[in-house]
């Protein structure tokens, strides 16, 4: 950590608060995204959120899949794993279980997360692992130069749907809620301040946090553009939405019209995470760094728990 970018404050009770600069999280490589690509927005947003939360780079692990959006970890100064198309979430789960002290973030595209990786999305939500999943949703396959995605609208013409799509898109928000995710939100990269707040809440939430992030592809999606979202997005916080009301959350998530809601749809703070319920993770440091075997005491407790 460079001194220049970090200011260290002491609270009156002696507790040290480390405030980091977003620059701290700048990776060694500069993004090669198209100028104007929405993904720049999330990159800056996560940097800002981590800085504001004071989580230093070596306490963060970011996994990604394959896609334009999945090049994200390379541009971010934190531990990173650029995995396979559709697979960032299982890998993130494995990391989290081996070292639950890390802040684990999985990122990727809509095709990556809701198409090829859709099964992992459902089951990780259900498992409620305390990881964060940010999907850069541009409603198109960017890296492969413009094919239909699971979030593309009915009728969308792409290279793989030359006559227009005859399939309905998936709704990531209702899907996540139904699958059992305990934090489900939507953000828009063009509304940075709001997005950073959502990301911070997601990271602070103890459980599986899913944020579907509108991240326009300026090259291959000429419909769902920045203009499109700027005109339509409405903050849920402004319409008196109660994030503990899942029915209202689903209703609002289904609205795709002149108004499209962004914000926190659903949060369940009560449910225990996988780590909370795991018999060996409830106390002690990262599992991977422990010496193998348990004390007699712990064994007794464990056997008691497993009975």
């Amino acid at each position, binding site marked *: 950590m460079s001194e220049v970018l970090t200011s260290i404050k002491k609270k009156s009770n002696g507790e040290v608060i480390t405030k980091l600069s977003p620059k701290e999280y700048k990776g*060694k*490589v500069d993004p090669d995204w198209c100028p104007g690509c929405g993904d720049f927005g999330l990159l800056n947003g996560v940097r800002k959120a981590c800085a504001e939360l004071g989580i230093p*780079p*070596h*306490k963060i*692990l970011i*996994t990604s899949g394959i896609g334009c959006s999945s*090049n994200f*970890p*390379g541009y971010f*100064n*934190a*531990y*990173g*794993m*650029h*995995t*396979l198309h559709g*697979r960032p*979430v*299982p*890998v*993130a*789960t*494995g*990391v*989290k*279980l*081996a*070292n639950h*002290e*890390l802040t684990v973030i999985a990122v990727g595209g809509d095709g990556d997360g809701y198409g090829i990786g859709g*099964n*992992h999305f*459902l*089951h990780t939500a259900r498992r409620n692992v305390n990881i964060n999943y940010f999907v850069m949703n541009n409603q198109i396959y960017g890296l492969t130069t413009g094919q239909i995605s699971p979030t593309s609208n009915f009728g969308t013409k792409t290279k793989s749907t030359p006559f227009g799509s005859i399939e309905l898109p998936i709704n990531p928000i209702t899907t996540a809620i139904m699958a059992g995710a305990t934090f489900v939100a939507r953000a828009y990269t063009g509304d940075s301040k709001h997005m950073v707040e959502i990301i911070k809440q997601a990271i602070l939430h103890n459980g599986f946090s899913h944020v579907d992030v509108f991240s326009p592809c300026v090259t291959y999606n000429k419909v769902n553009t920045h203009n499109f979202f700027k005109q339509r997005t409405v903050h849920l916080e402004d319409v008196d939405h109660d994030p503990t009301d899942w029915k209202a959350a689903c209703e609002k998530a289904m609205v795709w019209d002149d108004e499209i809601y962004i914000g926190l749809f659903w949060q369940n703070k009560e449910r225990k995470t996988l780590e909370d319920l*795991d*018999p*060996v*993770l409830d106390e002690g440091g*990262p*599992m*991977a*760094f*422990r010496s*193998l*075997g*348990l004390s007699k005491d*712990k*064994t007794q407790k*464990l056997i008691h728990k*497993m009975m």
Partner: protein
Amino acid sequence: MVDGAAAIARGALDAGCNFYAGYPITPASGILAHMLRELPKVGGIGFQGEDEISSIGHCIGAASAGATVFTATSGPGLSLYSENIGLAIMMEIPLVIAISQRLGPSTGAATASAQGDIQFMRWCTSGGYPVIVLAPTNIPESYHLTKRAFKLAKRFRNPVFIATDKDTVMTTESVPVDEMINAPDWPEIPTEPVGKPLDPYQINGTIHHYTGSSHTEEGYITKDPDIIAQFNERLKNKIESHIDEISLVKADLQEGADTLIISYGVSARSMEAVVIQLRSQGEKVSALTVYSLWPIPEKKIQDCLRGIKRIIIPEMNHGQYRHEIERLVNRDIELIGVNRVDTILITPEEIMETYHG
């Protein structure tokens, strides 16, 4: 009384395994059951993924964070593991994977005996990067080779397979205790890694990245052909230049024999029985059990060929390993396969018949 599943699981635990993720499939489910029951007792974590793709993904993540990981499946599961195995090779993640072989996709006959995945294990990844495959022939070896697999995975930071089969994994046998306890006199695997040691995201550690793409030393994707070539050569050479260390066989050679029987896995047990019978009848015959199927222990195989005019190779497939041996031996040596792909184990009698021509 113990089955191969228990022996393999015990081997993994004794090797320090503290993480397992897998998906049920006969005949590998026994390993899953043992691991998930035993892991919490030693402070480890084990669970069932939603499919094989996630299970091996969990393993890769956990291993990258410093856990010692293990998983097991059969052929169909290996299909689903394969892309992630490629990822683990590219990221240099140590993984131990037991493949309990059966016959083909689907179900039914698919859950019966076979040794159908010998080539599949070797060539399951795009790019054809080398892997290590160890094949135990019985229960004590299942235990000891599993422990060895963990050492190799760590040393080479690479996936290592244990090629087993339905019969070894699912048959309960009584085994002499000393064979389980006493390690065979195999050469030790050095503990230090051949390249950079794995750096498991330490607090105050050095920030580093992984990618499945060809990359620079720091883990950043590169398009530079020179760096890509160096990287790919290194992955190949780190295994192939240590072939002597990895090679493990049991050569039971007899002076004056002109027939050599080569086998591995469960079929090697019938080979052993035949050799005893033949010798008791006054025949001169040599036998070679191959434990390290991949990389092929070429030198160790060639060392057994003095005076040999004929090689018999029993295996439960259409000759997946015989074709490899064909490349290694002079054309004047006759190669004969004893092959079954009908779910029935190769019997000593069949090998005997082939021997007598």
